[in-house]
């Protein structure tokens, strides 16, 4: 779990301190229970770098005996964590599979192209233990650990996890671990697992890459379970990996289909940067422009320079003037959020307005504060502006996850992107996002107005109970599921299958065909129904037959949102014109409102949970 990062280039050698700096900026995501790094540093002479953890010399003696014919050098004790030492060998070939199953030792790595270091500690203490500070490589990945499903004091449970030439760092927890593990067991003959679900990703990726799949294909198989169901990864995962080949390293990162873990990506010249937090990339280089990797998205850099990019948000450019910094609060001067918020509160109370700059993913900014006028510059970190009341806020930059939870009677303008679960349970007030928004924007919105100019992820307005959301860009899937109140306007066509949690299309088709076969539905009506653009339309076409079909939506529990795709009615046009005029007035970024209002909108209102 935890914080992960990666930096890769096909042209430049990157110093170790860069990856360390990114991890340091994400200290919040970790503990002193583990950290690790991996780089592409091939072994001279084509030998195998073989490292193991062992708690006692006897186990090492036994292991040495097993692999004695392969040993070029070693074992050398290279580091020790909690009385468990890391021993390094150089071997003439990969060790036999049996070493993975031997008692008392845990394989850290056995690879030609990779060097992997990990142990119990903060990233900098692990780096000191292995003396990494002067190393260079063209590819780095790193991990700071918050132990999830395993104890924190055993070093072999830390990340990265490596199998032969594949090394991964993972943030998440796999519900599929049980079956992934069984597949690996029978496929590779390995039965001594650490119990950390993340290890399975290294094994599975290696299996697929060795089977001849390209990295992007392999990721696709891991995400879908097509071809081999047992390799499907389920549950939250954000993964960064390196796969060493004779042509050079393949570097990549990917996120689960539901975007249950964040990853931000930035590019500069020949380099690709990936991290769990946008603020961490900004901390490394303030010129970087971190973009959200959406659910099911991936970034891959092949050794020949080919890039595969899928599911990355677009960078939106606006012109705005940032506030003068001279009388502002420099966030970097505060050791923790309590002190920072106290400083903000004091200034707000005395002057009625405050300016904060140099925010680099600082958490909890201004939580519980208000009233007053607040200007924030940089990357606003997780869970900020929560439970604020009567606060008028400008964010010049972007905000990470959980912005404005339970906010009341406040106005927030973000000149950039916002992360997942923004405006969760917002009670009243306004939120204006000039950039894009992540998943679950306005989840459980209770009131107020949300306007987004850019694109929005999945589950927009989930469980929404009141208020109005206006989206001028595109939206993802599952819009308005479980909605019980409020209204969503989207200035685009949103297909039926993306509204609420529609049953699988195949099942709807089957059902209608069966009705035709049984003579319960004329064929032409079935054809019309299959082309319906909204649930309401479907319901109108099918009349009484819809009642039974609707059970596939789970209608009696939460129903399906009412959705129409049409031109605005007069009162809606008036409502929207007011909202957008206010939006332009507040944000000062122009918009052709007349033209927008001429469009057809997808208009979504509360679920019909009781017929």
């Amino acid at each position, binding site marked *: *779990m935890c*914080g992960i990062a990666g930096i890769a280039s096909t042209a430049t050698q990157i110093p170790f301190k860069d990856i360390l700096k990114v991890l340091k900026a994400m200290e*919040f*995501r970790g503990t002193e229970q583990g950290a690790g790094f991996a780089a592409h540093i091939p072994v001279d002479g084509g030998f195998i770098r073989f490292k193991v953890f062992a708690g006692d010399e006897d186990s090492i003696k036994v292991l040495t005996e097993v692999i004695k014919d392969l040993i070029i050098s070693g074992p050398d004790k290279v580091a020790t964590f909690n009385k468990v030492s890391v021993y390094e060998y150089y071997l003439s070939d990969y060790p036999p599979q049996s070493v993975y199953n031997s008692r008392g030792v845990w394989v850290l790595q056995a690879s030609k192209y990779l060097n992997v270091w990990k142990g119990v500690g903060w990233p900098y203490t692990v780096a000191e233990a292995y003396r990494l500070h002067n190393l260079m490589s063209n590819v780095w990945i790193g991990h700071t650990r*918050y*132990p*999830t*499903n395993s*104890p*924190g004091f055993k070093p072999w449970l830390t990340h990265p996890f490596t199998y032969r030439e594949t090394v991964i760092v993972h943030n*998440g*927890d796999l*519900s*599929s*671990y*049980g*079956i992934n593990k*069984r597949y690996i067991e*029978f496929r590779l003959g390995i039965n001594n697992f650490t119990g950390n679900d993340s290890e399975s990703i290294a094994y599975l990726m290696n299996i697929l890459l060795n089977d001849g799949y390209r990295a992007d294909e392999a990721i696709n198989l891991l995400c879908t379970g097509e071809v081999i169901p047992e390799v499907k990864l*389920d*549950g939250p995962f954000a993964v960064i990996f390196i796969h060493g080949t004779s042509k050079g390293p393949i570097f990549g990162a990917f996120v689960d289909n*539901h975007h*249950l*873990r964040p990853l931000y990506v930035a590019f500069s010249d020949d380099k690709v940067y990936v991290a769990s937090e946008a603020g961490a990339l900004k901390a490394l280089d303030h010129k970087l422009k971190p973009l959200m990797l959406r659910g099911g998205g991936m970034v891959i850099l092949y050794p020949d320079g080919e890039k595969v990019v899928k599911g990355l948000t677009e960078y939106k450019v606006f012109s705005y003037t940032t506030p003068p910094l001279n009388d502002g609060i420099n966030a970097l001067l505060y050791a923790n959020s*309590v002190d920072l*918020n106290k400083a903000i509160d004091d200034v707000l109370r005395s002057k009625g307005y405050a300016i904060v700059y140099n925010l680099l993913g600082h958490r*909890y900014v201004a939580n*519980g504060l208000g009233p007053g006028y607040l200007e924030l510059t940089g990357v606003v970190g997780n*869970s900020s502006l929560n*439970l604020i009341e009567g606060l008028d806020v400008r964010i010049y930059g972007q905000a990470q*996850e*959980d912005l404005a*939870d*339970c906010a*009341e009677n406040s106005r927030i303008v973000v000149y950039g992107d916002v992360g997942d*679960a923004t405006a*969760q*349970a917002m009670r009243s007030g306004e939120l204006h996002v000039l950039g894009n928004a992540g998943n*679950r924007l306005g*989840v*459980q919105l209770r009131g107020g107005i949300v306007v987004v100019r850019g694109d929005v992820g999945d589950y927009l307005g989930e469980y929404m*109970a*009141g208020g109005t959301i206006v989206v001028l860009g595109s939206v993802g899937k*599952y819009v308005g599921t*479980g909605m*019980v*109140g409020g209204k969503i306007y989207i200035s685009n066509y949103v297909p039926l299958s993306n509204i609420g*949690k529609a049953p*699988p299309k*195949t099942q709807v088709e*089957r*059902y209608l065909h*069966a009705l035709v076969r049984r003579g319960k539905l004329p064929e032409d009506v079935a054809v019309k129904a299959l082309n319906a653009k909204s649930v309401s339309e479907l319901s109108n076409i099918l009349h009484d037959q819809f009642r039974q079909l609707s059970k*596939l939506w*789970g209608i*009696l*529990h*939460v129903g399906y949102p009412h959705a129409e795709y049409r031109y605005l009615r007069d009162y809606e046009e008036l409502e929207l014109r007011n909202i957008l005029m206010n939006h332009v007035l507040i944000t000062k970024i122009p918009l052709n409102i007349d033209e927008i209002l001429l469009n057809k909108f997808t208009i979504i209102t*509360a679920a019909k949970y*009781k017929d």
Partner: protein
Amino acid sequence: MKEQGFNVGYIDKKYLIMNRYLPPLGDKLGFWNRLRIEGIRYAAEKGVEHEVLSRPKPRGRILDRLSIKEVNVDAINNLIQRLGIEGVDRLEVDVGVDFASKRLSTPIYIGDMSFGALSGNPNIALARAADIANVVIGIGEGGLHPEVGECSNIVIQWASGRFGIDRYMIRKGIAVTIKIGQGAKPGIGGHLPGEKVVDDIAKLRRIPPGSEALSPAPHHDIYSIEDLAQRVRMLNELTGKPVLVKAAAGHQARFIAVGIARAKALGAIIDGAGAGTGAAPKIVRDHVGVPIDFVISITDRLLRDNGLRDGFLLIAGGMIASGQDIFKSILLGANMVNISTALLIAMGCIMCHKCNTGKCPAALTNSLSEPRRLDIGWGVKHAVNWLKAVERSLKILTYSLGEDKLQNLVGRRDLLELYYADKDVAEIIDVVLKEPGQIAWYEEPQELDIPFEVMFYGKTPVVGMGGIVPGYTTPAERPLDLLRIEAAQVTRPSIDPYREEIDLRVALHDGVTYEAPIVVPCIDDALVDAAEALGYPIECELLKYSKLVEVSPGTYPQTLEGIIIVDEGEFNGKRPWLEEWVVVLDDEGRRCRLREKFALVAAGRLKDGADIYKLIALGADAVLPRALFNSVKERIHGEVKERRIEVYENVLIELSWELRLLMGAGGVTSYKSLRGNRWLLRSLDGYVARVLNVDIAGI
């Protein structure tokens, strides 16, 4: 006022005031039986428990099978009689515990029941009782009732629904509890049925009246342990109060507790299976999560191993109903317990499991639109009496061990002995096994009773209150019932199938993809039509496939290819069981690397989504629940075909929702991640665990 022939109270202007006990209903089989209800009422009337300590029993919870070394049951029961209330109160024994800014008299956290789940007066009565008896009470997630807000021992809840939360309210208690999950329905969010969302409740929660108040299954800002740590710190900074986290006991409970401790929370409330609820899907209540007595000891040990035990409160919940339950929980490794159902019983609950309807006869969980109201004074008196009775039992038990501080006994498992269990269970709870036996409790299968909402609405049944854990507190019909299903808590989000996609599609080996891994027998044309329309596999269609074999458990098929139907015929309890044979053939297929060449269909006396889930997780590709379909057929015999089709469709749709609910609870979004994933299962019984190759509960 006469109602149903009993004198139940008096009329105050517009309300019928409840100030008497109604005759208890209780479960015929199950934890909350009439005897237990009467025991609680005795204590609530007299201020002392009828029985301080009982002998180990061969059936029921682990707590019921534990004895305390060197404490004579008869002697201690006599001692309390002899001392009397005054005598016990004079004992210089401290059974209290430090909690936030308070020193509590008794280590009890009264469970978080919201205003809305309870009808106002019970919320007030319990909060006042907590102040008087000096225990602590969580207010639940419905917002703060103004009169509850006047009490001083309250803990504010931060739940996924955020109902009624603002920056003033969140600071009003002595601590804040982040509610991740509850034992009755791990992986499922809070649910206040629309019937109860009226007037003040709707206003306080800021949702339209009459709508279902559903809290998201996970917190959408907490998908991992570091997210939780972030929230713990945020709430702590915002309120200046300590933060607790409440989670259901899933398989990973101990790791979650460690994560919570590492986040510098004050404590973890781990709520076990069988715990109470206002409304939970029955299938989840009965099969997901692990009883608390499997979890306490192993969690205590892991916290110690990680150096995180000092100053951290481990609070155990779920079917804790007496002083000795609390005492044994503390010896197992808890600091405190979380109690709610027992207190509702003390205040008149008759255990009719109808909390979700809003029509509670005892005026505890009724809708505000109903005419009954609890007499607050009467409620306070009985709740306080019961709390004092339990405190007295704890004192005398502590005293009998020669100790003067109960907290000194936390984790003293060496003082316990386990009876009538297997060594695997003894090992998990780290208690000496005094007399071997079996946890599992089997009885002949009952006649299947399919609820009307399944047959006529395609709706998954929702029930109130707990106490039902098959094979543990109620009889099991087959070994499958002893398996508990994993729930996602904290480390990954659970999935709400009504709002999020859970893919049930399955490709069997006849080249066809079906919508669900549920095979339908050809016992009625109408059933076949229904299955066809919904895209479920049909047995007689499968039988046409050339590469199909049928075997009974114990028989190997000639080759491992095509479709293999393992049919148990009539279930008789003899080995090899159907579930066992699924495990054997799945393992064999994987060992020979032939698993992708065949589909395994398990057919037998199977009845619901839980049976289907468990068999697929053990290794089956699809399941044919004969008992269910036979029973439906009987029920609708004689109806016209179109009507029968509709009922069958309802049953098939409902079955898929049950399966999705169970998968979603564990954060499993695809059938592909379920099949053969035995890690999602745990057994309450060591023998069943070994035969089916799954881990024991608690691990």
